[in-house]
């Protein structure tokens, strides 16, 4: 054989070595789903499975997760039964997937909480970003997720389809998360304790808030000038809710003055808000501006509501919806 002239290769030994590695990898892939069995997306899916009849469903990222107190909402809007399906560190595509997964619940109203320009910002994610809670794209309507995220990249589509088959890839943060916690603990050695909430470090959120303020004005100005449409998953979200015969309400979530004043006091913001209101109304959806509903002491960090703030917001939301005809009064199915 020609190769034999150049190589001395002992394939059996090498193959045995590789097979042993593969055996270990298979074992790990069996263990990973066990480690990830109580991940947040799976808990939400379990909530959907176990939930009784509901009238109101809330979707969004950690702003909804932290900000909606279902009990307070029900107190403000008697006769309703609400479930919070907000999920931290997620984007509109994941919210749409969660809506699709909630088909068995037949609410009369669905709410979507957002901040700033989330409804019109383009949909982007690379392979590394689709981990943690966003890993739900691998197991909740993955074809839909791929349609949104990888429509322009065959490489990403290949990675996502391949990744779906490997639990170690899908739930990689089940392992990473633990290591990251260790790393952060090491990082704090010798320094004063820093403020954190279950959503992350206050410092990180403060940095995000500070970064956004400078470019916000031009960003919203451009969105209006270029007539940026509602993004595809948001449109899909609205259409799906309508097909199910429910009302859909978008809520600009409460923000503290540190975030609100430099941004929402701008003329450009008023223009932008009017612009997305028209876009939403054209789709048969409604917009509620709750940005100034909660005083600053109701916040946990520069973005998230504390339980006290969540109670104020949710109760007022219930009262607002209960006092007008924007939301069908229907009963829980």
């Amino acid at each position, binding site marked *: 054989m020609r*190769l034999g002239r*150049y*190589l001395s*290769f*002992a394939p059996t030994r090498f193959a045995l070595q590789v097979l042993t590695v593969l055996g270990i990898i298979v074992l790990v892939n069996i263990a990973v789903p066990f480690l990830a069995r109580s991940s947040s997306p799976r808990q939400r899916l379990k909530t959907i499975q176990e939930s009784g009849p509901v009238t109101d469903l809330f979707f969004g990222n950690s702003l909804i997760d932290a900000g909606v107190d279902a009990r307070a909402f029900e107190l403000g809007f008697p006769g309703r039964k609400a479930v919070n399906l907000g999920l931290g560190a997620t984007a509109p595509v994941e919210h749409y997937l969660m809506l699709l997964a909630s088909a068995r619940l037949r609410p009369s109203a669905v709410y979507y909480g957002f901040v700033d320009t989330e409804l019109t910002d383009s949909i982007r994610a690379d392979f590394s970003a689709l981990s943690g809670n966003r890993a739900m794209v691998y197991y909740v309507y993955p074809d839909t997720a791929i349609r949104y995220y990888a429509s322009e990249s065959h490489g990403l589509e290949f990675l996502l389809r391949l990744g779906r088959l490997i639990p170690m890839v899908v739930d990689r943060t089940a392992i990473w998360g633990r290591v990251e916690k260790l790393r952060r603990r090491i*990082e704090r050695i*010798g*320094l004063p304790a820093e403020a954190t909430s279950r959503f992350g470090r206050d410092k990180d959120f403060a940095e995000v808030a500070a970064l956004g303020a400078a470019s916000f004005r031009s960003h919203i100005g451009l969105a209006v000038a270029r007539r940026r449409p509602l993004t595809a998953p948001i449109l899909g979200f609205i259409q799906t809710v309508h097909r199910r015969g429910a009302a859909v309400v978008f809520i600009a979530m409460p923000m503290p003055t540190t975030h609100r004043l430099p941004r929402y006091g701008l003329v450009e913001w008023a223009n932008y808000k009017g612009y997305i209101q028209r876009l939403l109304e054209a789709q048969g959806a409604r917009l509620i501006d709750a940005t100034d509903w909660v005083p600053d002491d109701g916040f946990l960090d520069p973005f998230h509501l504390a339980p006290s703030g969540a109670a104020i917001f949710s109760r007022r939301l219930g009262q607002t919806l209960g006092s007008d005809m924007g939301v069908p009064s229907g009963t829980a199915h």
Partner: protein
Amino acid sequence: MIFTRIEYYLFLLLPCAMLFRVARPSLRPWVCALFGSAFFVYFSVVELAGWIAAACLLILLWEGFFSRLYHPRSRLCLVGIAIAVAILGVFKYWNFSTGLLTMPLGRNPFRWETAFLPLGISFFTFEFIHYAADRYKGTAEQGTRGEYFAFILFFPTMVAGPIKRFQDFVPQLRNPSTDWTLDWNRGITRILTGLVKKLAVADVLGSFTVHLNRSDIAQADRLTLLLWIIAYGWKAYFDFSAYSDIAIGSARLLGIRIPENFDWPFFRSNISEFWRHWHISLYKWLVDYVFIPLGGSRRSLALVCGNILLTMVVSGLWHGAAAHFVVFGAWHGVMLSIHRVWVTYRRRRGYLAQPQWKGQLGNWALTAAGVTIGWPMFAMNIDTALFFYSRLF
């Protein structure tokens, strides 16, 4: 993060290693050159300044053709060295040097706002200089054009070394190891070890080193500052030795052995030994192409110390175009000079015996302290480093 990217392994290393193994000997250099070019273009585009950075492949192509003109004692070799130094100077030191020259003006009208570093420029220019200098001295054969392209475009070492020598590389290119099983066993083991060192050790130590900034330094106590700076040294070691492990392991998959870069430097008991075992290929390069041309050790003690100091300042400047790197190099130059004086003094007095274990331990502690004191000048700008020292002492 080239070596932590999956495409490096799937689309470059594995195909190249397999093709190299089965290709005819005359084609092997071109396999290396082809994959090296693809490596340079792809990672320049995705990791650096895009297509403009990728266009710097022309520098390597130019070198591949110009180097054919080198002959022993030919002035073109010196021209080649000057060109290599100029390329490094323009890309790496333009803003630094014009900034120094225009300091009295208060602004730098010659500032290159969109300056970028071509992939691996600090390393490939050193290999250019080595080849031109050795061709001039007649200590390196010319090799074929393909072999030289393979040498300068050998992607495992292109970005961050180890800095190879043509004389060591070419014989292996012509007759690589044929023990595929052993090479792949050792090569893959080395790559995996490098990745573990990088991800599980260096990056975890990075949890300490993120604090080497003014506001965190102001908050920390002495012990914590000491912990951070020791961690910085170990992180630098694990990070760079991990990179070298992956480079060496990658080359091994092709059946080629490239020089080692680290050999337990933190366990050495004097500063000279430290440098002989820390970034070995750079140290040897500096000795051969800076220290020896300056006169090396065959001068008076004062001149030798001056040569050492100058060589280490060059080393510091090579690490980065900033004043703190120069100070870092100078600090090590001073330590090496003091060590040279001490060794000469002992030799003259006839103290030749190795110290006992207590003495060895003391020497090790002194070396570790000297190296550790130098890290702030490597890790931070001068102002922050001085602030660090003021808080530490």
